[in-house]
């Protein structure tokens, strides 16, 4: 709404003569602005209903927080994205507000949609877990990961576990087998009251860096919920929202980048 207001204001106050661009002029301007943005061509996303998904909403919140901070800091030569405001609006107290110093230096933030989500359990141990996968091969050149998070929403769990505490653990899948559980590497874990709700944030920085360098090793993440006696339970009964939940509560991954090189446009 406010952006639209600014847009309208511009036409009122603009001293620049506005005229309809001819087709080839528009094409040329599009080409030049894409070049400035460092894009070889315009992206063609599949965006039906995507604007109301959790990741775009989270990113828009981040953008708004950053824009308002830039307004107040106009003049000071700080060139970084700030993340603090977003953590307070998007992440209820349930999500840990871990050290955000490294995030203040980010030049780029990117969210990734979950590509695969499978509910599984291994028959002998009846170990329940959920798999998630993210494609990190689309990261623009010259960007190095400084932090990465996996974010999943938790509602109140079903009444059966009302007084329980859950241990939610996230693993990197190292190797998959057809007849037994995959080899896993423990990444992060949290203890949560079953009655609690909100976004859960897991640190997956090291894994993301590994996947960026070795995309062939990206076999995804596994999430597992245990009650305190060690039994694993179904993710859905623990209140965790997966692919079939509301769009605004879909799990996603977010990564923060620092430009490792100056963007140079090609000489024409």
């Amino acid at each position, binding site marked *: 709404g406010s*952006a639209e207001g600014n847009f309208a204001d511009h036409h009122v106050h603009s001293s620049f003569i506005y005229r309809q661009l001819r087709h080839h002029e*528009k094409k040329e301007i599009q080409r030049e602005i894409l070049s400035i943005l460092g894009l070889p061509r*315009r992206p063609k996303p599949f*965006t039906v209903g*995507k604007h109301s998904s959790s990741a775009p909403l989270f990113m*828009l919140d981040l953008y708004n927080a950053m824009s308002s901070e830039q307004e107040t800091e106009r003049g000071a030569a700080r060139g970084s994205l700030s993340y603090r405001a977003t953590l307070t609006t998007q992440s209820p107290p349930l999500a840990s507000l871990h050290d955000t110093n490294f995030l203040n230096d980010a030049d780029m*933030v990117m969210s990734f949609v979950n590509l695969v989500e499978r509910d599984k359990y291994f028959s002998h141990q009846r170990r329940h877990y959920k798999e998630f996968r993210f*494609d990190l091969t689309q990261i623009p050149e010259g960007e190095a990961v400084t932090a990465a998070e996996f974010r999943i929403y938790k509602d109140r769990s079903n009444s059966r576990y009302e007084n329980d505490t859950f241990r939610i653990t996230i693993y990197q899948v190292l190797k998959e087998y057809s007849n037994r559980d995959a080899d896993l590497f423990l990444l992060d874990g949290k203890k949560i009251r079953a009655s609690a709700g909100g976004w859960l944030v897991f640190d997956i920085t090291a894994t993301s860096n590994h996947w960026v360098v070795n995309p062939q090793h990206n076999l995804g993440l596994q999430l597992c919920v245990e009650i305190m006696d060690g039994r694993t339970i179904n993710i859905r009964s623990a209140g965790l929202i997966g692919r079939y939940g509301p769009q605004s509560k879909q799990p996603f991954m977010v990564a923060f980048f620092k430009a490792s090189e100056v963007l140079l446009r090609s000489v024409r």
Partner: protein
Amino acid sequence: AANSKRKNQNRNKSSSSQDSSRLSGPGDYNSSEQKQACKKHELYVSFRDLGWQDWIIAPEGYAAFYCDGECSFPLNAHMNATNHAIVQTLVHLMFPDNVPKPCCAPTKLNAISVLYFDDSSNVILKKYRNMVVRSCGCH
């Protein structure tokens, strides 16, 4: 638009001896009486007008501004000018046909942030430096 103006200006300058009537026209940009001092002009780049609403989430566009105008001696007191711009002006006064006046160009630039989808519907929030003119001056 700013570039085309400048090109026109150069073209007019080179053809001034042949076609003086073009310089004296009431709407002629190059008329020295009408030419303004170097200053910041409004220029809005609209992503919406470019038809990019499907992949750029925010902003709808941004006020880029541009610098244009004449850097003539005495250089405008409230306008920034490099030390070299003063020397350039003096040399121009001595050799007006061979040495151009200093250039009117940005002295301070701001960044903008752009939020957009990529081909895979991932979302990118990226900061682009030196996109918005904060002030102009003579170089």
